[in-house]
């Protein structure tokens, strides 16, 4: 079970790092330099802050559910 928990922590740590980079680094700390790139007619930083980050959040929650499904089966702790 120790190993199951460690794998769980690894998944969570990777996904939470992506969460941090997208929400805080891209959308807040480095928004101005990123705004010199554009997506459509919007600055990239602005777009990430108001749209892109939310799409990434969906992917993160979905990825977690799928990865944990696999992990649960591997360690036979699913129901």
């Amino acid at each position, binding site marked *: *079970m120790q190993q*199951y*928990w460690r794998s*769980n922590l690894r998944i*969570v740590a990777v*996904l*939470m790092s992506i*969460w941090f980079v997208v*929400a*805080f680094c891209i*959308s*807040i*700390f480095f*928004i*101005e330099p990123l*705004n010199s790139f554009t*997506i*459509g*007619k*919007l*600055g990239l*930083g*602005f*777009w990430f*802050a*108001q*749209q892109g*980050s*939310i*799409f990434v*959040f*969906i992917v*993160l*929650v*979905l990825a*977690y*559910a799928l990865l*944990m*499904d696999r992990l*649960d089966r591997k360690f036979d*702790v*699913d*129901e």
Partner: protein
Amino acid sequence: MQYLDFSLLSAADPARPWTWSFVAITFAVYLYIGWRSRVKDSKGFYVAGQGVPAIANGAATAADWMSAASFIGMAGLISFTGSDGAVYLMGWTGGYVLLALLLAPYLRKFGHYTVPDFIAARYYSETARIVAAICAIFVSITYVAGQMKGVGIVFSRFLEVPLEIGVVIGMLIVGFFAVLGGMKGITWTQVVQYFILILAFMIPSVAISSMLTDSSIPQVGFASSDISEKLNNVLVELGEKEYTQPFNSFTRLNVFCITAALMFGTAGLPHVIVRFYTVKDVRAARYSAVWAIIFIALLYTTAPALGMFARYNLIQSMHNARIENITIQNGGQTIVVDSAADAQREQLRLADEGVAATPIYNLVSTEGKPLDWATQWQLTGLLKFDDWNQDGSISLKLMESSDVDGNTVRKSEVAKIDKDIIVLSTPEVAGLPPWVIALVAAGGLAAALSTAAGLLLVISSSLAHDLFVRFVTPNATEPQKLLIGRIAIIFGILVAGYFGIYPPGFVGEVVAFAFGLAAASFFPAIFLGIFFKRANRAGAVTGMIVGLAFTLTYIVMATSHKVMPMFFDGPLMAPENYLLAGWFGMEQGISPQGIGTVGMVLNFVVTITISYLTPPPPQEVLDLVESVRVPKGSGEAVSH
């Protein structure tokens, strides 16, 4: 509080019969579901018997989460905040990542009924339970009052029903399905309410997107169209800042702190967490988080598009509108004048007679269309004009003027515009058919009622399950427990209704800060409870108290003149004294909205330090932590 003058509203509003029928139909559906899902035991009452499918729970969570503020307020808020509006978008969605990855699955495995249940068991302390239950009640009551007021506004604006009666109707409807069906009734009505509110939000958004851009998908039109450039240019012409430029409304530090406080607060809010207790097992908890964030993202990615389009549209239709005439109401008598100067004279004359009268401007747009919606919104007091340069038209340009003290100020001729107008008026401003306007009204009600119901259940479970049954009537039988739960919900409805009609000054202030308080108190306690075995009673209780006390003190000191206007004329702590102000060359310190982030860090530090300095938790608690970390065996709820 809004004052309505019904005699002035035109009786022939084409949307009204539509609105009445939509509201009647949706309310009938809610009542029917409430009747169908009435419950017989307290497990059904508090956690819907734990048989709710993941997708249904996802929709219910989304409706629970998206309040009157998300539906009516948020797009408007972003509309006036521009780029920095991202704090609300990311804050209120990013919190779901925390919830889904760090809290929900484990809490579902734990499997009791409430958040205080978990805190009490994990920190083997009834004191911790009481602290948690009181926090939950406090946060939920301030929050629910805002929902009831939202119900009142929709009723008064769209159905000419006085605010108070609107609130009472809302109370009766929520009361019916919540008292009969408890969590079960609330869950299934929330599922229906989600679909009504999302439809009501999307239809006008799609319509305005197709009107202004090449794409009918607002998310696409938002990025691909030139509206952002046009809006930036128009705003610069009017003397304001560019819409897409970051850090116009908040400093970088505050954007960070507010976003984090909203995220961690969202993850710690009891009415959201409790939704994950209603599903079958841990796996279902994970997948209902996926559905929830998809359902929520549909509205949250549309809102910034709607906000930008609506701002542009509003400026286009209102700027330089000609004043047709101005009406002033004096008792039953309507005085019609032609100019702002005459209106001012009438106003002064009436003021001498002791009558406070507001002039209502009837405007005609530059394209020659009469702006009826502007007239209607002025009657609610949420929109006010003042043609102070007396040129017979309304300019949105910031112009120099002098205030009463002779200081130079820059202001436009829109004396007041409430952000709540944006979503509700979009269909009218865009000239959409009357049934769309009616649908938006029904959607606003669905958003307000679904959130109110979820909050009422938290109030009821905290009062009845966590406090009353445990400490007053520990020997209550099952039917008695259910009865106590129902009485607690009725009590909650009455309190919420009262605050909705007579909002005390602090409610409006505290709602904005509820997230900071939840972030500083609940999130670290639950998170460390799962991920940090060494966390013990002494650590968690001190941590929660320090985090909460610090955050609350900071907020109260910064807003003392608004929270307690009878004692203070100004804030105890002026903005120049905010934390970190003047450090590293920063002009502004951390605003009270973002201080929850600091409170949360404090809570973490205190909990961890004290836990290491005091004896570790007992073996059965360590076993409990081991067991919540493994999904297997979550089938049955443990009912003490």
